[in-house]
């Protein structure tokens, strides 16, 4: 069986670092995203640095009717795959998202698109009784806040979806891991005021790959976000609603 990892949304900083960490372990890669030029560059880079085979193809999370044929093509080209990392996401403009036309796009990308693709992956791995699915959601999905609740809701829904998949696939030996990054030093956070404890994409990428050797199902990155979110989740609603978060 091929040892290829399929990475969706492969041109983001976190995805690139995760791809590098897999390549450093010797995994072949299939990179998927919307930007052909970026895919080509990143694929060449990983191939030169790590000597693994790297293929790539165009993928649009929101075009869900394309997901099934795309997945079949990848499986055929790579002679099967051993794992999937779902790294795409779309923060969008949170003020504009108050108009649901924009909000719907955020949901279509972060949740509907993800759920569509993960369903196909789950149906592929389940009968094989092996493989892994790693879904990158966000700490923003742990509690709705005025500053980004549309994005948060979509990521929160994705977290729940992954939880359900984990429950379903456990008996067939397929690992499902939910990754919840806090602040990571990416294009999304660059220049944001008041950020603290920002993790590098390399740190996050290595931890994501490292999680496969550990038993945790849900990982917060860096780890202390688990405790930050624990506190935030437990603030009573009557107080929380008054807070400017």
């Amino acid at each position, binding site marked *: 069986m091929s040892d290829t990892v399929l990475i969706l949304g492969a041109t983001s900083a976190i995805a690139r670092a995760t791809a590098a960490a897999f390549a450093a372990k010797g995994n072949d890669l299939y990179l998927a995203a919307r*930007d052909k030029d970026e895919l080509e560059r990143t694929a060449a880079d990983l191939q*030169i*640095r790590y000597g693994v085979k790297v293929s790539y193809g165009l993928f649009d999370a929101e075009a869900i009717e394309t997901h099934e044929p795309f997945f079949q093509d990848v499986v055929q080209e790579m002679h099967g795959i051993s794992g999937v990392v779902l790294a795409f996401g779309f923060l969008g403009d949170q003020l504009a998202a108050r108009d649901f036309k924009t909000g719907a796009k955020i949901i279509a990308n972060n949740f509907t698109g993800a759920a569509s693709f993960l369903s196909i992956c789950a149906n592929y791995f389940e009968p094989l009784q092996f493989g892994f699915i790693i879904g990158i959601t966000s700490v923003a999905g742990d509690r709705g806040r005025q500053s980004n609740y549309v994005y948060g809701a979509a990521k929160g829904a994705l977290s729940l979806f992954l939880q359900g998949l984990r429950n379903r696939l456990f008996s067939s030996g397929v690992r499902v891991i939910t990754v919840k990054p806090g602040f990571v030093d990416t294009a999304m956070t*660059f220049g944001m005021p008041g950020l603290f404890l920002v993790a590098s994409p390399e740190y996050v990428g290595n931890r994501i790959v490292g999680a496969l050797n550990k038993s945790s199902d849900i990982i917060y990155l860096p780890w202390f976000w688990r405790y930050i979110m624990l506190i935030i989740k437990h603030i009573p609603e009557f107080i929380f609603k008054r807070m400017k978060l």
Partner: protein
Amino acid sequence: MATLIKPVSGWGRYPVQSCEIERPERYADLKPSSPTLIARGQGRSYGDAALNENGHVILTERVNRLLLLDVENGILRAESGVTLDEVLNAIVPKGWFLPVTPGTKHVSLGGCVAADVHGKNHHHDGSFGNHVLSIELIKADGSRIECSPENHSDIFWATVGGMGLTGIIGEVTIKLIHIHSSQMMVRHYKTPNLEQIFKLLENPTADDSYTVAWIDSLVSGRELGRGVVMCGHHANDDELPFRIENRYNIKKRHAISIPFNFPAFTLNSFSIRKFNAFYYSHEGKKTSPYLTDYDPYFYPLDGLNNWNRMYGKQGFLQYQCVIPDKTSFEGIKAILETLTNSRHPSFLAVLKRLGAESKGMLSFTMTGYTLALDLPIRDQGIFPLLNRLDQIVMQHGGRVYLAKDARLSPESFHTMYPRYEEWLNVKTLIDPENRFRSSLSQRLKIGETA
């Protein structure tokens, strides 16, 4: 694109200026997006070359992919933000090496082209630009142009050594050199004074692929300019112990970090004198050839992260000049004398023979000798002292290195760089509004039409 306004500095930590920083992650986003801008790689230039006070600075660090490695012919193409460290990790295991490297591997490929850097092999192989096959330059109007010594050669030689002022270097193709192992064969010569050092550096039997002299800058009189001449080359097949199975192994070095600024009193003439005396005898002992990994050989200081903090909060200046062959001995001697007679000890002094002048219009190198000094800024007295050194350099027909400068005057710059007008013609052609500017270019009035 989101920007971040914060105080930044070069490696010398002087000056510190507030700049608006952009950090593109996609190649297509590496483009002029603001009225005035300058590219910045790893910020390892010492002064203000990669700063743009109250203007934009474009970080290339995330545009760092290796695009092509031809292991048959030793050709590498990569995005300009990639560091030499990353390049070496990819090429050394395949039996290739950089044709020219500066004294730290934490610099970007773009920074090496823009400063047309030189290494310890300059007297044989010239500067970095000599080994660049082509570059993609992103111009002020956003268009991209492929240039090389054959194609748009004027733009090419204005960009090599052009300190980022002709545009953003997007991709770089270089010719690599073949090596037989990751090991260096090294040998030192302890040398009692400056005359002897010059003799040794001119002596072809002592010479090697990489040759450089460390000088004890605190002794004066008869011992003025005593030092250690250090020679080395990539080990040949017959110099390798036969047990070397994996000859291209790269040993990972773990760098130690300097956690805080050293207090001012730690670096004074007493401690530097002690250190230099120790170094002179210790390194001077290595007179028989020995093998060592390329990493500690080329990049001794990379073993200490943030070593620039050792110079304290005020930062430090690096003064690097070149004096042409005919007048070099007199010039270097005058500089060392002026320095030892001042209250400003230099922590490090390195002397190197340079070969043929670079074709870069604003490149630093010319045939002669270059001296580099590290000078902590303990008080303002350092500035008039360096102005005096500028005078000596100009009297002897030399120049100061822009990649290390933070304080030269526009008048001195124009005297030192005679091809400036030629460069300006190219600059005005491809950047008519003078959008590519840095704090360095504004200080030295580079790019301004009079």
